[in-house]
């Protein structure tokens, strides 16, 4: 049984997620499920840049907002169905991110973080002031989804779940590719990575754009689910906080960490909101939580658990020191690249 769970836990988790909205039929649960999946997808995307390369952006929700507006405008002006225009227009946003990423990749460390915040604020200001396109502060409405209101958010839930699976497959593929190893090398030591032949600028720009894609995609679907969007919700640094916090809680730079983090954080946040009402207090709790995670669990749940398991295995097994490929690539990826062998072989 234990081995079975260990081997197929992903499919078990997926099965649970598939039947969840059928078991809990109240719209509340569908909304909660949708929000959790939305943050999980965005966090998985954010992790490609923030976790793998270590470039922590606090402005990626700019792409969330941009695609939310693009999808709404395309639905209103051209009659495009958001279900397929969201992933399509996210590609447009990702190409915009390619250019922005190329500009911003010149800044490092704190300068990069500030530049991303500035980027978010510029787009927010544009959304507020280009009234003929965005409708200004009151925002934009778009047609309701065609299915019956009784289904509530269920179709959105399944659609988001599908894209979460896609995001995870892409994230895992990147993590195991040579390109991903280059990203990890940048995180460890950018100068060294450059020296051993990683094209650091190109890698950073691609990671920037890839993470923007999934965040933008989430924004597009969110826009359709909301039917009405406004700049203060579409371009909100708190969207970044959710994403970053989920990633850090679960485990920065791991494939599954962002998802785990989102599945803990979003229901917990919802509970806090329900329990204490006012959103301002909810902000304080989030802030304290974030401080606590950074101070006491800086690597997140998954890497800490893995360390503990590894320590236990070491005492009980004759194969002490044996490590999986992923663990090895965890530490000092730049050192491995020096060997010059393609990875994976």
């Amino acid at each position: 049984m234990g081995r079975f769970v260990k081997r197929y836990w992903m499919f078990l988790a997926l099965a649970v997620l598939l039947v969840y909205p059928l078991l809990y039929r109240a719209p509340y649960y569908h909304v909660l499920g949708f929000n959790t999946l939305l943050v999980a997808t965005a966090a998985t995307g954010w992790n490609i840049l923030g976790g793998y390369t270590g470039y922590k952006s606090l402005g990626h929700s700019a792409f969330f907002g941009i695609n939310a507006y693009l999808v709404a405008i395309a639905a209103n002006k051209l009659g495009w169905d958001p279900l397929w225009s969201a992933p399509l227009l996210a590609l447009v946003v990702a190409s915009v991110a390619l250019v922005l990423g190329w500009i911003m990749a010149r800044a490092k460390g704190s300068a990069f973080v500030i530049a991303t915040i500035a980027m978010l604020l510029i787009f927010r200001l544009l959304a507020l002031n280009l009234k003929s396109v965005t409708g200004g502060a009151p925002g934009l409405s778009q047609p309701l989804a065609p299915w019956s209101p009784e289904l509530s958010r269920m179709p959105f839930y399944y659609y988001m779940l599908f894209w979460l699976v896609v995001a995870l497959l892409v994230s895992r593929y990147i993590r195991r590719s040579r390109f991903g190893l280059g990203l990890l090398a940048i995180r460890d030591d950018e100068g060294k990575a450059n020296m051993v032949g990683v094209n650091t600028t190109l890698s950073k720009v691609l990671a920037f754009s890839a993470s923007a894609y999934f965040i933008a995609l989430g924004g597009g679907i969110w826009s359709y689910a909301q039917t009405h969007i406004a700049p203060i919700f579409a371009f909100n640094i708190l969207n970044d906080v959710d994403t970053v916090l989920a990633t850090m809680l679960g485990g920065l730079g791991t494939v599954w960490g962002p998802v785990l983090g989102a599945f803990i954080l979003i229901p917990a946040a919802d509970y806090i909101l329900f329990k204490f009402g006012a959103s301002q207090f909810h902000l304080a709790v989030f802030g304290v939580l974030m401080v606590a995670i950074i101070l006491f669990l800086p690597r997140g749940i998954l890497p800490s658990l893995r360390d503990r398991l590894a320590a236990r295995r070491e005492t009980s097994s004759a194969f002490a020191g044996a490590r999986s490929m992923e663990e090895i690539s965890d530490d000092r990826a730049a050192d491995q690249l020096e060997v010059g062998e393609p990875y994976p072989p």
Partner: protein
Amino acid sequence: MSFPSINVLIQVIVIGLLTGGVYAVMVSGLTLIFGVMKIINIAHAAFMVLSAYFAYWLFSGFGIDPILSMVAIVPVFFLIGKVTQHRILAPVGDDPGLLVLLTFALAITLEGVLGSISGSTFRTVRTGYTSSIVPVQLGSDLTLRLPVVRLTGFVASFVVLGVLWLMLNRSSLGRAIRATIQNSEAAQLVGVNISRVRSTTFGIGLASVAIGGALFSLIFSFNGSSHVEWISKMLAIIVLGGLGSLPGALIAALILGVAEAVSAVTMTTYISPIVFYLILFLTLILRPQGLMGAKVREG
């Protein structure tokens, strides 16, 4: 875009310079903190709003003028700063991304606490002299009208910056701080207690923003969420001035004060903050060392 007459423009530029002086005191601590420990304190504006609330509460509760209440607020903020650096920032190490997130977390904690206590109503301190104006005759048809609160802020800013400058250049603590800015490892080798210099600098940084907050409460209106808008302005100023450079911060504060005032009359007040964001963005990309600082791309 509409261009005002030359008289209005002169008036606007002078108001911009006065506001810029207040900006200078708001950001002096931020740039000093960056200089010593390479941390961008995203919570700086949140601490300023906290200090503004203290000034507001002391004024509405006991009728104490913000200029006076500084005497009580400043030492408290110095202590808060010292403890925050020692207990929360120092243990995290020196990953700049992580430290920025940490100070960001402090900022939203403060925002949440202030929002829960005081709601979202905008506050400001309205003293007897809030709406008084000093007219200054400059020629036959040009009279500058200078608001007293901005003049007070401007004067107070220069007092604070003067004290900071003296402290940095004429005291042994100042020498230790400057040595740490130049090369922290070498400073440590010659016997500077780096960790103490760091926590003291953070304390001084918060003490200066406490003064900035008291002045801020006289001139601007604020609520718990105001820090988001202000930290971006502050960052624009210190990045333009060159991170870590106090004279640079002063010059950049005056430049941006004027730029903001002029863009507010030529464009609209809604779009004028974009001046800050664009300057911030462009400086980081094109000239990361700012006007007077060292290169910070590696920051």
